[in-house]
């Protein structure tokens, strides 16, 4: 029987195995033991060559005696493997407060690397009770430890550290940059006075850091001093000063930069927007409309590619206010713009596209992106310029279906009868969206040629074409389509007969209603219903005599539809026709009849509810 010590010894030995499975098992087993040896073994496993073993060991350590583990880890922080050091760091940060005391103890270690490591860890843990101890490290004999202590104090962000940091700035020139950054991170206005004093620094790098720190603290009073640096000969200093003022503006939601020389900093501002600086982006968006036209359009177009959807909307609004004069700059930028920006630019151009803009836009018709070509087609159509027809016809043969669709639609908007023959070719397209687009265009243009062609298509061998034709004629809705639609009431396809009836009803102005009356006897119930609607629409109350016989139609839905149609007319005198249907077997017909009679405002004819026996007794008593 193996003792616990034997087993642990075996697992510790297994950590050296070349087999991954052995080492993994060893780590898992060690994690189940309590005791310093097991923890030491897990710490050892942190140096394993396989990252999976290292992560497993770190995870297991987190569930062990954290005090001992912390001590061990602090001592063993100088692992060769950078990944292991990262794991140790993460482990200690995760432990947090329980590790603090061991880290504070390590601040007095003889080894400067251990002191530096402990300082860094305390900065990561951000426990402000450690500020005093860290301030003491500002006097450490090792510069690396001092620098790390300054950085750690900046991370913790406690105002208590300000006097010690200011003193360190004066004392040690080599850590001034870090001190300034730490003061900026602490963000307490108490540091502003000292920081403004550092603005006399000769080192441009340090000066930039001071300006940035002042901006981070965000004291209103510092704006005027920062302004003085906008004129610096060193562009980095001037730009940092501008960013600092914008930072303060953002903090207070007030505009301290109303008269900032924005144009002078255009390149810097745009690159900041490109780099995703939200404060600068917001600053620019807020003042777009205040800029001169050309400058505003330049900013807006530069920024479009790098801002989020909400900002795009604001830019569009601003460009909309500029109006057509923005077009020239937009067109200049178009070719070099990204796909996304091109689509936005086309939206803008669409607002004020005219012949001259359309004339320039045709140059971009070979754009590689079909979505761009599609939008160009729409924009050209909006211009209503007949000169764009040739380009639109080219787009109407594009390899991409939705580009062809847009081109046909746009050709319709040009309203040119000369394009009818070409538009008719769209009815043969393989995609239904394109065919419908061509039909829509033909509807707008209309004319005898279109009507004749669609009338002929009513008997096309392709039923799809028949449907397009009947829809098109109905939408054209001119007197000239009445004749072909009347003839089609004998069409072999019921849906065509039905569509023709619906269109005829809508058009009205029918002189010969006999074909419609005949349709009341159609073999198809849908057609009979359409005939009822058509006659009611055209003749009104006079149609009731014609349609009455359908109250007894074999199809329940025809009965329902006829009752409802008579009811909607609202003539009291027709209620006598409907009364028998209040007793109908079919629920749906009974309901329709009840509703129709009610619509006729003739409630008195409705049957009175029978009195219940209880009510009868009560009444007798009365």
């Amino acid at each position, binding site marked *: 029987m193996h003792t616990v010590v034997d087993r642990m010894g075996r697992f510790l030995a297994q950590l050296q195995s070349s087999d991954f499975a052995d080492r993994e098992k060893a780590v898992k087993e060690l994690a189940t033991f309590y005791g310093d040896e097991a923890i030491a073994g897990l710490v050892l496993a942190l140096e394993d060559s396989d990252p999976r073993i290292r992560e497993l060991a770190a995870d297991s350590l987190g569930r062990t005696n954290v005090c001992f583990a912390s001590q061990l880890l602090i001592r063993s922080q100088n692992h060769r493997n950078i990944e292991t050091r990262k794991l140790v760091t993460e482990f200690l940060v995760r432990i947090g407060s329980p590790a603090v005391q061991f880290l504070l103890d390590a601040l007095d270690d003889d080894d400067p690397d251990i002191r530096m490591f402990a300082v860094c860890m305390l900065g990561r843990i951000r426990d402000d009770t450690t500020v005093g101890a860290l301030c003491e490290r500002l006097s450490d004999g090792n510069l690396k430890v001092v620098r790390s202590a300054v950085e750690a104090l900046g991370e913790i962000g406690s105002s208590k550290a300000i006097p010690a940091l200011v003193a360190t700035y004066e004392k040690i020139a080599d850590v001034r940059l870090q001190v300034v950054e730490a003061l900026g991170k602490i963000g307490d206005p108490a540091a502003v006075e000292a920081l403004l004093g550092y603005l006399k620094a000769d080192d441009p790098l340090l000066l930039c850091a001071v300006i940035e720190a002042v901006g981070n603290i965000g004291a209103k009073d510092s704006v005027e001093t920062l302004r003085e640096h906008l004129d610096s000969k060193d562009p980095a200093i001037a730009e940092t000063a501008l960013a600092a003022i914008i930072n303060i503006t953002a903090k207070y939601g007030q505009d301290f930069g109303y008269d900032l020389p924005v144009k002078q900093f255009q390149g810097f501002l745009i690159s900041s927007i490109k780099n995703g600086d939200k404060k600068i982006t917001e600053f620019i968006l807020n003042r777009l409309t205040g800029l001169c036209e050309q400058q505003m359009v330049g900013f807006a177009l530069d920024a479009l590619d790098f801002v989020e959807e909400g900002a795009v909307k604001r830019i569009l*609004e601003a460009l*909309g*206010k500029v*109006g*057509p004069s923005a077009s020239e700059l937009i067109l200049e930028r178009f070719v070099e713009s990204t796909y996304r920006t091109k689509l936005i630019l086309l939206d803008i151009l669409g*607002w*004020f596209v*005219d012949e001259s803009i359309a004339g320039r836009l045709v140059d971009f018709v070979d754009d590689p992106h079909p979505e761009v070509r599609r939008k160009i087609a*729409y924009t050209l*159509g*909006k211009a*209503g310029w007949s000169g764009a027809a040739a380009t639109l016809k080219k787009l109407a043969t594009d390899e991409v279906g939705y580009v062809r669709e847009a081109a046909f*639609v746009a050709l*319709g*908007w040009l*309203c040119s009868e000369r394009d009818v023959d070409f538009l008719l070719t769209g009815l043969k397209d393989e995609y239904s969206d394109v065919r*419908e*687009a061509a*039909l*829509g*265009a033909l*509807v*707008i*243009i*209309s004319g005898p040629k279109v009507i004749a062609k669609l009338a002929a298509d009513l008997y096309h061998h392709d039923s799809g074409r028949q449907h397009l034709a009947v*829809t098109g004629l109905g*939408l*054209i*809705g*001119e007197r000239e389509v009445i004749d072909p639609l009347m003839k089609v009431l004998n069409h072999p396809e019921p849906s065509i007969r039905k569509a023709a009836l619906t269109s005829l009803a*809508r*058009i*009205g102005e029918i002189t010969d209603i006999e074909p419609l009356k005949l349709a009341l006897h159609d073999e198809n119930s849908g057609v009979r219903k359409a005939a009822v609607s058509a006659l009611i629409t055209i003749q009104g109350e006079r149609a009731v005599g014609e349609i009455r016989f359908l109250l007894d139609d074999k199809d329940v839905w025809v009965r329902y539809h006829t009752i409802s149609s008579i009811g909607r007319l609202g003539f009291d005198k027709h209620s006598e026709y409907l009364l028998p249907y209040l007793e109908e077997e079919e629920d749906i017909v009974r309901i329709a009849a009840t509703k129709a009679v009610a619509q006729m405002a003739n409630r008195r004819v409705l049957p009175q509810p029978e009195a219940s026996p209880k009510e009868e007794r009560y009444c007798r008593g009365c």
Partner: protein
Amino acid sequence: MEITIRDETNVTILALKGRLDLGTGSAVKEQVKNLFEKEKTMIHLNLAEVEFINSSGLGSLVSIMKEVRLRKGRLTLSNLDSYVQEIFEITQLSHIFEIFATEEETLNSYRAVPVS
């Protein structure tokens, strides 16, 4: 067709009632032309009571749109009846017209941001 005209802030509203076809479309065009003579180019057509429109009516609207564009004005439509809306969808004229659900929404848009 009945055409009622009234002025609101930044826009003249024409409320149309009846069928919009060749004859009535010409009447609307005539009224809009009169407005142009008074230098009114911000025009809104309320189509709430237009229950029928045919290709000639559509042509009139497109023609009015072109004239308004030439004058750098703005044309809006609102309250489209379901059938009128269907025609606008099939012809995709909704791409070139600014269409609002209600007159109130339209008026707000004129108060907020004039597009051009």
